[in-house]
């Protein structure tokens, strides 16, 4: 019985679910809902829309890279004379596309989907809780996220267009950039607030609201991953918020936090007090942005863990090792940030320090990947659609991780920094890495959220087309980077070394457009499957707690509070007729 029911008249106990209490009006049930499942779906749909929008920006940008200076047929005229004069992309617009693509994908796409959607929806269910610890705070989190995202997009309509100083917003350029940068900063404040409030909710929920019998070491790895992620968000985001405040001061109150003395722009000395430091921004930005990339990967690893255990029909190999590695990874992520700044003139002591910590942080990543690969060994593997994405994740993440090594080592980073090699590296981790994991998660938990199954054939088409195209996009970038091609170049053909790899740009761009088409079966499937007949309960025959609730779960989640009797991945127990033994099943 819920602990708060000792005060007589206050409550209906924990039975709201069964008794369908006072019906809430539409706006409280679906708009300003405090139910984590509704909020999870809100986050999910919003994030997917933003994700596809961010992808569209890249589809545009890739035209310029493949065919520099050429007018874009049809679409070029639609975007107006400012952005695409005569259908040819303006350099200023190119910069906006680049900066906004990164910003939108990271802060409005992946994190809200991985944490806001999957985390919100699944974590309370997997720990047997009726909701998050602070349902109203959860609602506020979403309603800080959505306006933040919309404000960010509104930047495109500002004079001079959207933010155009890279997603990294380095000063002095960002300090003096067009209005869109101010909008970027204000939107970031909203987005950061949303994340902070969410992280508090996750930590308290995971610690305080676990079902009876659900000890720390019986939690699904997905929950461990979200737990560590929340600490990263909680402690790493505030420095960026501080930096954003200071950049707003620089831009709106003419301070010089990031402006050094003696800055001259186009022959005109900048009339500010000076005495500031552009490197200060870089430190504060990367203090967040490095842990941020682990925010991008950890929930994905959590999803992969669930899908692999379920589709190999055996417990995860090295479960405790996975948990310790995730915690160590989270901690280390705070001490590596200046490996993004090796080229800023730092001395050998500090660069050695950061290089060393960066090498050390690769260890838990490798351990986690190894545990996943070992989990496949001896498994009765079912190549369901989630499993296809999860299996692909493994080599894709490996490529992403391995290509990080020459970047984390200062000697090789001298050459590779700010080239396309970097873009190839981090996209391998986030795109065929995290995004594939998120697709796995969508296919895996769709029956839980909707009670229906997605079409598996369309899912397989989606997978194979995406897998081929995504490698076509990012693999050539390593060659371009090693050839010395810089990132963020409007026209790569102005350089001989750029011209040498220009044919790869054409290949990449066509792969991007192919990748876009590959998403069509998914989008169709996502909506059309809502009209399928109701699926069986627990269609994946999974062991974790979320499958104890009806699909979709009612308000309050569980008809009776679940009790946990065993570890999370009791598959193929010797001597049992059934090949899975749910955590919540009382019978031995």
């Amino acid at each position, binding site marked *: 019985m819920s602990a708060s029911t*000792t005060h007589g008249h206050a409550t209906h106990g924990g039975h709201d679910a069964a008794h369908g209490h006072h019906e809430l009006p539409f706006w409280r049930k679906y708009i300003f809902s405090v139910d984590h499942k509704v909020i999870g779906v809100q986050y999910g749909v919003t994030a997917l829309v933003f994700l596809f929008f961010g992808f569209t920006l890249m589809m545009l940008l890739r035209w310029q890279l493949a065919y520099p200076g050429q007018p874009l047929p049809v679409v070029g005229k639609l975007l107006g004379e400012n952005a695409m004069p005569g259908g040819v992309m303006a350099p200023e617009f190119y910069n906006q596309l680049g900066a906004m693509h990164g910003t939108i994908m990271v802060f409005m796409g992946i994190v809200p989907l991985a944490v806001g959607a999957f985390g919100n929806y699944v974590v309370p269910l997997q720990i047997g809780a009726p909701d998050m610890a602070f349902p109203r705070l959860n609602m506020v989190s979403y309603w800080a996220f959505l306006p933040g995202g919309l404000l960010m997009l509104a930047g495109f309509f500002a004079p001079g267009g959207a933010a155009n100083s890279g997603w990294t917003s380095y000063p002095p350029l960002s300090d003096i950039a067009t209005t869109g940068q101010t909008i970027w900063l204000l939107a970031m404040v909203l987005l950061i607030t949303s994340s902070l409030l969410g992280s508090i909710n996750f930590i308290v929920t995971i*610690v305080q609201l676990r079902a009876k019998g659900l000890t720390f070491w019986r939690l699904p790895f997905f929950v461990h991953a979200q737990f560590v992620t929340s*600490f990263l968000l909680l*402690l790493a985001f505030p*420095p960026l918020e501080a930096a954003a405040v200071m950049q707003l001061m620089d831009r709106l109150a003419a301070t010089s936090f990031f402006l*050094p003395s003696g800055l001259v722009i186009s022959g005109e000395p900048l009339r500010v007090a000076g005495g500031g*430091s*552009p*490197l*200060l921004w870089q*430190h*504060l930005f990367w*203090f967040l942005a490095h842990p941020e990339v682990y925010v991008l990967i950890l929930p994905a690893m959590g999803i992969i863990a669930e899908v692999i255990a379920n589709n190999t029909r055996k417990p995860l190999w090295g479960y405790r090792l996975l948990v310790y590695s995730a915690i160590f990874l989270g901690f280390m992520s*705070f*001490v590596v940030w*200046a490996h993004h*700044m090796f080229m*800023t*003139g*730092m*001395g050998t*002591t*500090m*660069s050695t320090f950061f290089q060393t910590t960066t090498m050390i942080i690769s260890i838990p990543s490798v351990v986690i990947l190894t545990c996943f690969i070992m989990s496949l060994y001896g498994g009765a593997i079912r190549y369901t659609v989630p499993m296809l994405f999860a299996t692909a994740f493994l080599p894709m993440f490996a490529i992403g991780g391995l290509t990080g090594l020459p970047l984390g080592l200062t000697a090789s980073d001298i050459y590779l920094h700010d080239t396309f090699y970097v873009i190839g590296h981090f996209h391998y981790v986030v795109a065929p890495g995290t995004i594939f994991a998120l697709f796995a998660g969508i296919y895996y938990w769709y029956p839980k959220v909707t009670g229906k199954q997605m079409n598996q054939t369309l899912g397989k088409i989606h997978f194979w087309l995406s897998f081929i195209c995504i490698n076509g996009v990012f693999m050539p970038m390593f060659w371009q980077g090693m050839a010395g091609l810089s990132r963020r170049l409007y026209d790569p053909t102005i350089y001989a070394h750029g011209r040498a790899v220009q044919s790869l740009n054409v290949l990449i761009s066509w792969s991007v457009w192919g990748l876009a088409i590959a998403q069509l079966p998914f989008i169709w499937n996502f909506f059309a499957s809502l009209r399928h007949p109701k699926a069986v309960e627990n269609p994946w025959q999974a062991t974790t707690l979320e499958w104890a609730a009806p699909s979709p779960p009612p308000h309050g989640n569980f008809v009776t509070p679940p009790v946990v009797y065993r570890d999370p991945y009791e598959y193929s127990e010797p001597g049992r007729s059934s090949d899975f033994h749910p955590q919540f099943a009382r019978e031995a």
Partner: protein
Amino acid sequence: MAETADHSSPEAFKKHLGQYYVVFVALLCLTAVTVGVSYLHLQRPIAIAVALVIATVKAALVAGVFMHLISEKKVIYAVLILTAAFFLLVLLLPSLTIFEGVAV
């Protein structure tokens, strides 16, 4: 009735109140001390050290007594120790990094 862990009876609790007043007076005194010391115009490094020590003592009083941190649960300590570690990191490492190399 719900129990919040410390302070079981009203009498024991009222004794606690005495502590608050003592800390209050101590904080005001320490404030006076820190302002007074500033008039001594000590050398910069010593002045910084003294000011930070006094501030830390005041902070410890506020945190330990007013915020009940002195009798708080382990979970809270764990969170705060982790935070303190990262706080020191963000406070010191940027300056260290810039000054160790070429100053900008």
